[in-house]
């Protein structure tokens, strides 16, 4: 089970509203490589993972992704707090505003709502860990793309932190994949699916 801790994993303190930035950063809340998808990907996959190292990694990284969802949501909240109707119109944020005002709604940068189709839970340890490693790289690229477009140091700092976590998670999933493969037949990792055939 989970217990809420009344703190962010890393601080978010943005002084100036900027709905134009919020419009694309929101993709890391509910977009295809966002933190909501990341958390549900790992937390869904862990139930059938047969190895304790993998159960721990999927649980702990899935949990950390929930903390990242909170951080990105805090970024969006602070970028859209105290914004004027003029700022909303100038940023082209009317389409979001009319449906959600300044509330947080999980959607991609292009406006489509969160969809579980953006992640997989295949019930095969090798398949899932490759998905997880790819997911971390896609999220890292997304943060790199965000960093190309933001100029507020208050936004850059937590985004850089989140980008670095993608790299750390990629490393840990790579190590988990090696542990899984060390438990399988080295001549044919695919002779059986350790999540089903054992």
């Amino acid at each position: 089970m989970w217990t809420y801790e009344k703190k962010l994993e890393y601080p978010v303190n943005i002084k100036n509203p900027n709905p134009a930035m919020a419009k694309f950063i929101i993709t890391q809340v509910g977009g295809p490589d966002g933190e909501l998808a990341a958390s549900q990907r790992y937390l869904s996959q862990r139930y059938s993972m047969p190895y304790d190292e993998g159960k721990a990694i999927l649980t702990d990284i899935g949990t950390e992704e929930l903390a990242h969802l909170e951080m990105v949501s805090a970024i969006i909240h602070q970028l859209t707090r105290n914004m004027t109707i003029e700022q909303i119109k100038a940023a082209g944020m009317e389409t979001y505003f009319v449906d959600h005002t300044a509330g947080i709604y999980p959607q991609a940068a292009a406006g489509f709502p969160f969809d579980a189709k953006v992640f997989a839970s295949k019930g095969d340890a090798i398949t899932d860990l490759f998905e997880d490693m790819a997911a971390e790289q896609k999220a890292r690229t997304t943060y790199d793309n965000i960093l190309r477009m933001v100029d507020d140091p208050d936004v850059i700092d937590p985004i850089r932190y989140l980008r670095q976590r993608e790299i750390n998670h990629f490393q840990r999933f790579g190590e988990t994949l090696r542990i899984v493969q060390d438990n399988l037949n080295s001549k044919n990792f695919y002779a059986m699916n350790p999540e089903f055939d054992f």
Partner: protein
Amino acid sequence: MKNIPKRNPVGMSSERIAELRRIQQLNFTMIDLGLYLNTHEDCEEALILYDKVQLMHAAAKAKYEECYGPLTIEGVDTEKDGWSWINGPWPWEGEC
């Protein structure tokens, strides 16, 4: 294959399950009382009960972690047990 995982991990002892149930009950009491207090912050009776249950929960959790291993990452004792965090059984396996 070096390490064929067991489909059904070794179950927990009845003493361990009893202590876990107690923690679950105390923690649930805190959760539900907490919800009540969010909308009744001046209720003296609930505040006193929360305080009492909070202490019982802390004691039960400390005892459980000492005997059986961590419930959270903060409960790991590396000197005594090494990295016990990864040890099963895991909560979703139906043995606990």
